[in-house]
């Protein structure tokens, strides 16, 4: 059954010869069976076979609903459009900050990096403060063109614009990282042969970035499919997506089959997209083949017109990225009425909101609980998958392919259904977990957090392994190094920057989780998401909205600090080691002082 060939592929038999691989295989099989397949199979069986027989009711209802079909169509439209626009903007900002010589690129970088630290409903609200019918830019435009429609910034165009600018995080982290691996000698050679800036970019640089670009494209597609808050705030009547409907239906026991069916449709589309990307990725060589590769140097754009144009666009984008953050921070000091009416008077800014949030009786406890849970889950997910991703990337056969697809199960179902599946499966002693009952324990939420993060972690890790030059590994093996030694001393240092970035992103995205925690949290250890929800829900008074802003700013601070800590260290060490050791060029964005925050899960 061995398929795949060359230095990259190996058959099932040779794979099973290594004891390390065997152990990992067994652990992985158990984990997949116990936490990915069994709980979700349970919840799907319960929804689609309510009385032991299949009910086609859900499909019938959905396909005859105009609204459902239109929303579903909108979600797909957004997903496809976003896959393109995020790549265009994302590649542009990566090139501007890392590849071309642009004045003030560090400042630009910090501006573009603001998407790392916030997202969701507050981000959409931030854009509305600026471009909405009472927004600053709209007011300015109205004074220029009195006849224009103040509600211009709504519908598909507005949603696409906001989501494009909001989701370039993965480009900034992973594509930028991959760019550092491009061999400068090849570029120089091409230029000596007369290649233009554009040709070098198109024929040398971008092809090397392919595995990472494929991975982030899948993520953009997924983000578009799961769009929730941007359409709710900016979509208007014309452009609503399917996620709000999925959430409503998954909350109603009698309509849960509709939610599950919709989620499965989106999930299958994601997996198809994944398959296409995997196919495209196959067979290419994504590492430098030159014997002595050297680090990238920034390129001057030689055409003065083009150079000026790139500068202008870069700074315009900078303004687009930073304005909402500035306004969110300012508005977090205003009272709820001011936030909701968009009317700000300088005298009305006070510290009241912060005092109210920070002096609650629960105090800092929920913050600590969330930090511990998120950190544990992030480290476990990345640590556990480092080796797995390597195996999946190295051995390409039907077994590893099957494992890879199974590991993407959490992308198929919304987190509320994943949580219900875990409750259904483990509220009684189960042999799969050694006869233990998991509900009501502190472990079950951790398990859910880890599983939810698996697909994203795996995708990004696999992409970063793909850009490792296999000759390094071969050389070490020939000199007698054992598998583990090679992994630890050669592969790990090279992928560590990416792994650190993934860990930080995972950590950040789980800090304010609500959908999973609401069902699985231990009553005595309630994480931040539940407290935020209790303090920000529409029905909870005027303070609710200002609390939302305060929590957003507080989370920005936490994620900012985390990213600084993780990046500061990960950026320095491997760079040093890489020089003396593997000879790579993986020093990661040393100037990364801002932080990362993204939500690649179904609901952004």
């Amino acid at each position: 059954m061995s398929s795949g060939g060359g230095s990259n592929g190996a058959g099932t038999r040779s794979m099973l010869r290594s004891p390390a691989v065997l152990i990992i295989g067994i652990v992985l099989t158990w984990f997949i069976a116990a936490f990915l397949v069994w709980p979700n199979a349970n919840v799907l069986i319960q929804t689609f076979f309510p009385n032991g027989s299949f009910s086609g009711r859900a499909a019938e209802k959905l396909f005859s609903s105009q609204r459902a079909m239109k929303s579903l169509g909108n979600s797909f439209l957004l997903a496809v459009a976003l896959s393109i626009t995020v790549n265009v903007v994302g590649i542009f900002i990566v090139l501007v900050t890392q590849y071309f010589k642009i004045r003030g690129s560090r400042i630009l970088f910090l501006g573009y990096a603001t998407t790392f630290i916030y997202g969701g409903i507050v981000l959409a609200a931030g854009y509305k403060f600026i471009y909405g019918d009472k927004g600053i830019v709209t007011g300015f435009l109205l004074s220029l063109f009195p006849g224009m429609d103040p509600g211009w910034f709504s519908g598909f165009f507005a949603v696409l614009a906001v989501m494009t600018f909001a989701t370039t995080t993965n480009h900034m982290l992973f594509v930028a990282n991959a760019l550092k691996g491009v061999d400068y000698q090849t570029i120089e050679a091409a230029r000596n042969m007369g290649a233009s800036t554009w040709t070098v970019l198109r024929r040398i640089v971008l092809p090397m970035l392919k595995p990472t670009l494929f991975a982030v494209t899948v993520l953009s597609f997924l983000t578009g499919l799961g769009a929730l808050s941007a359409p709710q705030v900016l979509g208007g009547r014309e452009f609503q997506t399917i996620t709000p409907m999925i959430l409503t239906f998954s909350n109603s026991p009698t309509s849960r089959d509709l939610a599950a069916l919709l989620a499965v449709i989106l999930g299958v589309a994601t997996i198809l997209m994944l398959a296409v990307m995997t196919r495209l990725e196959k067979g290419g060589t994504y590492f430098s083949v030159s014997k002595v590769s050297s680090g990238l140097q920034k390129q001057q754009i030689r055409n003065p017109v083009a150079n000026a144009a790139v500068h202008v666009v870069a700074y315009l984008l900078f303004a687009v990225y930073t304005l909402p953050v500035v306004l969110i921070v300012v508005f977090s000091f205003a009272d709820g009425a001011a936030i909701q009416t968009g009317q700000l008077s300088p005298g009305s800014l006070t510290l009241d909101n912060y005092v109210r949030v920070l002096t609650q009786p629960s105090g800092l406890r929920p913050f600590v609980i969330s930090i511990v849970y998120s950190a544990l889950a992030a480290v476990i997910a990345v640590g556990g998958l480092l080796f797995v991703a390597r195996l999946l990337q190295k051995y390409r056969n039907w077994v590893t392919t099957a494992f890879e697809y199974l590991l993407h199960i959490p992308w198929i179902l919304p987190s509320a259904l994943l949580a219900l599946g875990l409750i259904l499966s483990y509220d009684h002693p189960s042999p799969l977990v050694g006869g233990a009952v998991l509900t009501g324990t502190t472990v079950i939420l951790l398990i859910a957090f880890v599983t939810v993060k698996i697909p994203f972690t795996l995708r990004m890790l696999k992409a970063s392994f793909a850009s490792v030059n296999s000759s390094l590994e071969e050389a070490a093996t020939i000199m007698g190094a054992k598998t583990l030694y090679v992994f630890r001393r050669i592969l790990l240092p090279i992928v560590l920057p990416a792994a650190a970035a993934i860990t930080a992103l995972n950590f950040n995205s789980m800090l304010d989780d609500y959908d999973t925690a609401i069902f699985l949290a231990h009553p005595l250890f309630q994480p931040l998401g539940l407290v935020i929800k209790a303090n920000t829900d529409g029905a909870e008074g005027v303070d609710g909205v200002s609390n939302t802003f305060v929590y957003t700013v507080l989370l920005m601070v936490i994620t900012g600090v985390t990213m600084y800590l993780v990046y500061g260290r990960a950026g320095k060490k491997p760079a040093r080691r890489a020089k003396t050791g593997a000879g790579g060029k993986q020093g990661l964005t040393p100037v990364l002082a801002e932080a990362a925050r993204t939500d690649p899960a179904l609901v952004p």
Partner: protein
Amino acid sequence: MRRLKTLVAGAVAVALLSGCGAGAAGPTPSEPAAGTAATAPSGPPSGETLIVYTNSNGEGRGEWLTQKAAEAGFKIEIVGAGGADATNKLIAEKNNPIADVAFGLNNMYFEQVKAAGAIEPFTPSWSGEVDAAKGDKGATKAYWPLVQQAILLGYNSDKFSKDQAPKDWTDLWTQDRFKSRYERVTGLGTATAQLVFASILTRYKDDAGDLGISDEGWKQIEGYFKNGTPAVAKTDLFARIASGDTDMGQMPSSIIAEREKSFKVNVESVMPSVGVPLAIEQVALVKGTDKKDEALKFIDWFGSADIQGAWAQQFNSMPVNKAAVAKAKPEVVDFFNTLKQQDIDWSFVQANMGSWVEKIELEYMS
């Protein structure tokens, strides 16, 4: 699912073997001593930690209750969740319950929890002080009423005088001057929205109609969605009234006074001739808790006239406990005295709400 079936089958078998043919016992088979509602034993609280699920913990309610309970010797840990989430959580956990007590959910939600067999019949010490019609209407009572709230259609009284204002929900889409001047919901996930639709739909009950509602009734829903302006996420109705985007919309009675102040608007409420729907927050004992005695003592304490009165005083609410009404704010009591409660068949609503929400989401919302 299979476990439940086994349980039910087992219970049926036991019932048959014992030769008991009483048909009206209802679907509460799994308790061995079915029919006898639990009551609290006498004695002081033991101080065991009780886990309390509620959707009524916002705006300092949770902290206030935890502290008052501690003063009375009860150690409680509040787990807050929205009404639908708390309901789903209670049902999902029924095989291995984590909570001991649940409160704050309305009749509609607790009826679902009861039907799933996740709460247990009991009788609180204050059962004589509340109007039983406001709680569980079944033969065995598994939840008891605490606080009532009116679900109103409120309008900007600076723009509409009492005479010009709508007289009922149906005016909004049948009279041209209200069209596009009222806010309509964009989702049916909240209890308030569901109660508004229960109030409209139950007027058109028709056994021959789709989901028990006549065509005329569904036309009303169509009108509601066609002619209203959609609500905006994270923007309060009062903020939109203040900015002139809209003039009226649904609101629970308890929030009006505070938001009028915050947004500097004046709002009056419509009193339809059929009355207004009441959302009545209830309290229940979770089935299978291992701290049943302590939980019952806590419920006895919490629902007592003293504590309900203090709660009403603190949070401007209207208690169901008649002895507590004296301690509530006079303006709140007056408002409820002038209010006519709409008579709604909750078991009909509970049996159909899921399908109604589904139909509305799929066919009428746009």
